[in-house]
């Protein structure tokens, strides 16, 4: 369980994270979603005690990161794949981490085998490809067999096979009852990976919920063209539907299924020329949700 409580992080005059609160529960994969620069990495660094929040706090199973005596046994994290001394071998890198947390050296070989790096364990980490570095980072996160895991943009640099591997791996971790937080700027990735999603933009909380809930709420607009748009709009006003757009092309209706609109038109005696349900993809939902925050950031950049 990870609890983020009213975290604010300011760098000079920019606010990277703005009064952000959320909880990450065990047993499910939680996607941490936001456009680039929305404060995901900063939030993760704060959870790991690397950055100090200006306000608020983050707790892991009720404890602050700094109070953990063997943190690797409680939290595993992959922040940046390349956060390794380039001159040190993969095995020595993991061994130094293990020893500092009282983890037996045999565990180093176990995790190296698990991520498939045993054959390059003695090679310098600086010579690793991005995909290999990601695997090394994952090995480091798993060293202490922790109940809580954080991954910042883990699919970056992985080939399709690696991506499938990592999705199955997250599923396994969650099924074992662990708390799994995975950040991404790609909604499509989260749609197939995560169970729960937390969306942030410009450092602010936007929404959270299950993947299904998020699509259900924003989905279901129907494009309607008829012989009498005016009459149809009147008729729709008596239902749960909302008409968001009226032009020569027709109406954009949300809140009522296409079949119900068709029945209504037939009952009112209006002939329909078009009835097209438009199911918003998760990607569109995400774009819509974060639209304001992204636009604001671009105007702000232009203003500078």
């Amino acid at each position, binding site marked *: 369980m990870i609890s983020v409580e009213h975290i604010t992080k300011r760098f000079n005059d920019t606010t990277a994270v703005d009064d952000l609160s959320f909880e990450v529960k065990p047993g499910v994969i939680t996607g941490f979603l936001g456009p680039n620069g929305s404060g995901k990495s900063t939030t993760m*660094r704060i959870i*790991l*005690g*690397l*950055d*100090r929040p200006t306000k608020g706090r983050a707790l892991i199973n009720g404890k602050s*990161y*700094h109070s*953990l*005596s*063997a*943190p*690797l*046994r409680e*939290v595993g*994290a992959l*922040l*940046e794949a*390349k*956060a*390794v*001394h*380039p*001159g*040190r*071998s993969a095995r*020595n*890198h993991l*061994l*130094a*981490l293990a*020893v*500092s*947390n*009282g*983890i*037996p050296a045999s565990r180093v070989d176990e995790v190296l085998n698990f991520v498939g790096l045993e054959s390059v364990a003695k090679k310098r980490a600086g010579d690793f490809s991005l995909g290999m570095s990601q695997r090394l980072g994952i090995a*480091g996160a798993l060293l202490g067999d922790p109940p809580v895991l954080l991954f910042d943009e883990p699919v970056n640099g992985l080939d399709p096979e690696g991506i499938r591997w990592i999705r199955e791996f997250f599923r396994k971790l969650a099924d074992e009852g662990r708390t799994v937080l995975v950040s991404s700027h790609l909604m499509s990735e989260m749609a197939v990976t995560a169970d729960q999603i937390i969306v942030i933009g410009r450092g602010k909380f936007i929404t959270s919920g299950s993947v299904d809930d998020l699509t259900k709420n924003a989905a279901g607009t129907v494009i309607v063209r008829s012989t009498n748009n005016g009459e149809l709009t009147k008729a729709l006003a008596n239902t749960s539907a909302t008409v968001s757009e009226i032009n020569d092309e027709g109406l954009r209706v949300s809140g009522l299924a296409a079949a119900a609109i068709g029945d209504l038109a037939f009952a009112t005696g209006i002939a329909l020329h078009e009835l097209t349900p438009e199911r918003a993809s998760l990607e569109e939902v995400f774009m819509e949700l974060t639209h304001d925050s992204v636009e604001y950031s671009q105007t702000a950049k232009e203003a500078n």
Partner: protein
Amino acid sequence: MTHTPGLYAVIRSEWIKFRSVRSTVIGTVIMFVLTIGIGLLIGFAVKGHLQSMTPVERATLDPIQLAMGGILFAQFAVGVIGALLITSEYTSTSIRTTLSAVPNRLRLVSAKAIVLALVIFIVGEIASFVAYFDGAAIFHGTIAALPSLSQGKTLQAVFLSGLYLTLMGLFGFGLGLILRQSAGSISTYTSLLLIIPILVFLLPSSWQNNITKFEPSVLGQAMRSTTGVLRGGTPVFGTWTATAILASYCVAAVGAGIILMSRRDA
């Protein structure tokens, strides 16, 4: 996996890190080779010219300083080792991995400092004693003959040569903690050793002696001194006063580094 790992676990971890990277290992070898090698070069170069020294030089001749001449070069190597021990973590961003494994900044810095100090101390002492015996052999029977280890402050001077290297390594480490960049830390360290004496030289001579005494390399010469004065007669601090002053520089630099590290984002 039930015991709580403490400082000792972090020291073992930092030792693995120290020996598993080329730069620190090569730096330590260079420090060893410079201490002994430059001592030999100075010995052979100076030996033939001992008769041409001025009376003042002869009167203030401290043969131990000649034998320990390599320290003047090795002090740059230890500064680089000390600085790189921490700056390499920042430049590679591996500091984030390190701090997520050991969130206690004081414990991490202590473990790094202990590993650094132990390595330089052991290698530095061995190198210093080898340099002493080399010097003793070279200057045997000349006016610069080295006193035996049991005579006067000889043993102390040789021992403090190794300790000087240790303290300078810690000082470089402190600068690295504060500045977090390899180039900045190494150039600051080098400037303090080389540029400050030049600037001091431009000051009125009455100030010079008072300021010069506090320069790290002059404190080092005071630590190695068996006569209490430098060649040419420049007065210096007493041996232990000099050691204490240099140690206080290290404490100040590393202490400031720890405070900054706990305040700054990694």
